[in-house]
């Protein structure tokens, strides 16, 4: 697969193109280091507000004029702000690629950054935060991340309440300064997949981004997060008849580290899909939850986390957590079997190939691979690496990097509001 891609430096941007069989459609995904963690000691709302200002007009066109150009051809451009990245997503017909690349460049390079639009962006951001403050999953993630990552670690989330206060006090000057410092081609990646001509794409990118400079690198902590030890946190939320839980710890591992893939495959056996051990027991046999799973995350650039995620009714919460811990203990102590590993390897590779069958899935896989520090050859290397794993490697990675006795448990929901048993059953 990698042979079908072309990677080049265009105007200082890492550009990867991949021609697929789809007709007329081009998907563009990109990223540059301007995420929430880049606020560092400054106003923590600035990275998100800066990202929200990109599609609110440029120095040359107001937001309605830009939207009209896109709407008239059915093209889409959107921006999102993640932990470390500003994310760029676009989709268009092949004939409209020059227009879309031009508009992406215009919005990134010369946003209008007007105070009236900032006020609207603040209102939108605060509204989203207030909604998140009542979402059990968001609150569980907030508490979990703050418990397992120390201050200064890029994966440590800010409290939702802190974001809200920061958004209210954010100034246009702070956003302009952030934009000047962090927005630039250095460390920026653009992936174009679909019915794309590489020379044409390169030429359009070179034209649109010519003369742009600046940008900062991603944050890579010199020391991985250490386990904070066992702990339990309860986040009370009113009128939530399903409680979200997270149980886990920091791994100290980045995606590309030795052991990370082995732990990932072992985790898939434990907690992914309907045949994962957690779903097979806690849901299928015991009927305690609609959804339970285990995963590793936030490890593309910095060291990440391992967690079990589930939802339980308050009346079944203790029983559900006990079952999850029981399965975790067994998995950690005894490891996975040869049969489980063989079946899961086949499934992971098959699912990977199915995922690459859409242009969006392919573009996302390429972008993630590059952000994780691989070259495009990883498209072919990934299935090989999965198939090469041994049971001993998987079980050793589980034992080495996880400790069930030192995990943090978060429960978010109406734990005390609802009865502890179901009536009449």
């Amino acid at each position, binding site marked *: 697969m990698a042979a079908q891609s072309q990677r080049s430096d265009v105007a200082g941007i890492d550009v990867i193109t991949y021609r697929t069989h789809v*007709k007329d459609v081009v998907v563009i995904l990109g990223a540059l280091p301007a995420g929430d963690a880049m606020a560092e000691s400054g106003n923590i709302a600035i990275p998100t507000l800066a990202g929200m200002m990109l599609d609110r007009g440029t120095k040359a066109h107001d937001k309605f004029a830009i939207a009209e150009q896109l709407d008239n051809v*059915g093209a889409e451009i959107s921006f999102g702000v993640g932990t470390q990245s500003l994310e760029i997503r676009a989709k*268009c017909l092949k004939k409209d690629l020059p227009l879309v690349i031009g508009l992406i460049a215009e919005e990134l390079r010369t946003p209008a950054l007007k105070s009236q639009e900032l006020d609207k962006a603040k209102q939108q951001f605060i509204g989203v935060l207030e909604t998140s403050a*009542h979402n059990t999953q968001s609150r569980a993630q907030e508490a979990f991340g703050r418990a397992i990552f120390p201050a200064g670690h890029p994966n440590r989330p800010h409290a939702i309440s802190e974001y809200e206060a920061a958004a209210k006090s954010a100034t246009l000057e702070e956003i302009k300064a952030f934009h000047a410092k962090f927005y630039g081609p250095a460390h920026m990646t653009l992936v174009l997949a679909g019915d794309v001509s590489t020379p044409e794409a390169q030429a359009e990118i070179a034209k649109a981004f010519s003369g742009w400079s600046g940008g900062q690198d991603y944050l890579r902590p010199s020391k991985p997060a250490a386990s904070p030890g066992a702990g339990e946190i309860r986040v009370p939320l009113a009128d939530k*008849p399903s409680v979200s839980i997270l149980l886990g710890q920091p791994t100290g591992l980045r995606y590309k580290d030795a052991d990370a893939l082995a732990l990932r495959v072992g985790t898939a056996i434990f907690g992914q899909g309907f045949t994962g051990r957690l779903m097979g027991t806690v849901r299928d046999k015991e009927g305690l939850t609609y959804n339970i799973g285990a995963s590793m995350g936030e490890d593309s650039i910095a060291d990440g986390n391992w967690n079990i995620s589930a939802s339980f009714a308050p009346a079944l919460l203790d029983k559900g957590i006990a079952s999850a811990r029981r399965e975790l203990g067994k998995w950690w102590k005894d490891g996975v079997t040869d049969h489980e590993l063989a*079946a899961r390897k086949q499934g992971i590779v098959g699912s990977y190939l*199915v995922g690459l069958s859409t242009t969006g899935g392919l573009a996302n896989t390429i972008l993630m691979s590059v952000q994780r520090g691989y070259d495009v050859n990883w498209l072919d290397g990934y299935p090989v690496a999965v198939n090469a794993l041994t049971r001993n490697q998987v079980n050793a990675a589980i034992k080495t990097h996880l400790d069930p006795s030192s995990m943090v448990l978060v429960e978010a929901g109406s734990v005390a509001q609802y009865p502890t048993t179901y009536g009449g059953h």
Partner: protein
Amino acid sequence: MSERAEFLGSRAIRAACVCATAAALNAWTPAAMGAAVPAASPAASSGAVAGFTHVKSLGGIDEYRLDSNGLDVLLVPDHSAPVVTFQVTYRVGSRNEVTGTTGTTHILEHLMFKGSEDFNDPKGNSIKQYLERVGGQFNATTSFDRTNYFATIGRDSLEGYIAIEADRMRHLWLHEADRQAEMTVVRNEYERGKNDPDNVLMEEVTAAAYVALPYHHPTIGWKSDIEHVPIAKLHEFYDTFYWPNNATVTVVGDIDPAATLGLIKKYYGVYPRSPSPIPEIYTEEPAQSGPRRVLIRRPGELGTVIIAHKVPDGRNADQPALDMLDAILSSGKNARLYRGLVDQGLALNAVAGTDLHRDLSLHTVYATLAPGATHAQVEKAMLAEIAKVKTDGVTAAEVERVKQQFIAADAYKRDGTAAVAAEINEWIAVGDWTLYVTFPEKVHQVTPADVQRVAKEYLNEDQSTTGWFVPVPAEKGS
């Protein structure tokens, strides 16, 4: 294994705010590129595979019927990637339920994963074991008008999946022990839905809008029915509706049509037609003679307003104009609701869409209040935008812009077999799969006058159901 219809409407319209318009937008097809789609030759003629009758071909889709039992088959060859999406749609949904059995369709959908005579966990070849071993992306969903089971897999894994899917059509295990374990799973799914006040509001607006039609109750069912429905009722439901003559198989992707029909015949051809006719719904919704209102008070921070109107069934000739109206109202930053509400600081988002049904559909305009805005302000602004369309109409430029968006959306949707199968599934649900092809042609013929006419005809106060979610402060100790 999910239930989605009880918030399909709100989900559909919320999704629309990014891409363009509501669910029907996704139904755009090659026809929208400007030329009518001819009735092509079937990929495998009826003579090529004995036992099938070729029904019709349209827009690259070939329809066949298995002569022995009436199973409907749609083949959509697409060789752009070595994958296939196989789907079976049963024409049964929560519309087929009554008091005491609400949620039965959905519980049965869950139990369809508990094993069948030839494929089950003890044998190590259950549907979950097989599909996860081959890396399939699979699930099932239940809605008001249909239930579907589907997987996207490598082409070499197709036969194995057809064999399992066919076995569970008539040889499902339906054990009381499984019902008990799965009931609590479904109850947690129900509880998760109740965590979101917007979902609760949408359920209550829908329940108020429909008095007689079974769309009144949510697809997931009432909690007491989920907990108490006996296994005998589930058996009865399965034996009434899970027959080949009540199902459509859709296969999209890298297939050889004749070989695929051969596999379908091999595994589904062993079943007869249902011993009794599939029951029809004869209930009709009585006329609504005044506005209805629903109010929900729960802990939360931001309020919501939904204005709903019953509109014709999904096959009705006015639906393309309603779809155009929704796009003009809520597709992109130049849409009227964005300019009138979001950009004015009244709403965080504001979208319009229609949840298409086999019987009366539900049109909704939805807005999440921005901090500081009141429900009355937002409702007034929403109604003002509707009134403007009714009074002044829409412009030719607005109509043309939406048509261009639909042309692009057509190209986008051809990228991936699962999305194609999912859209065909929804048109099967409303009762005519050919709308997957012809609906876009009809949208392309919509004029500004059509848009104004349907707004005047359907979006009337006396036909409306308006819902407010009003947040209240949380009590301590929750």
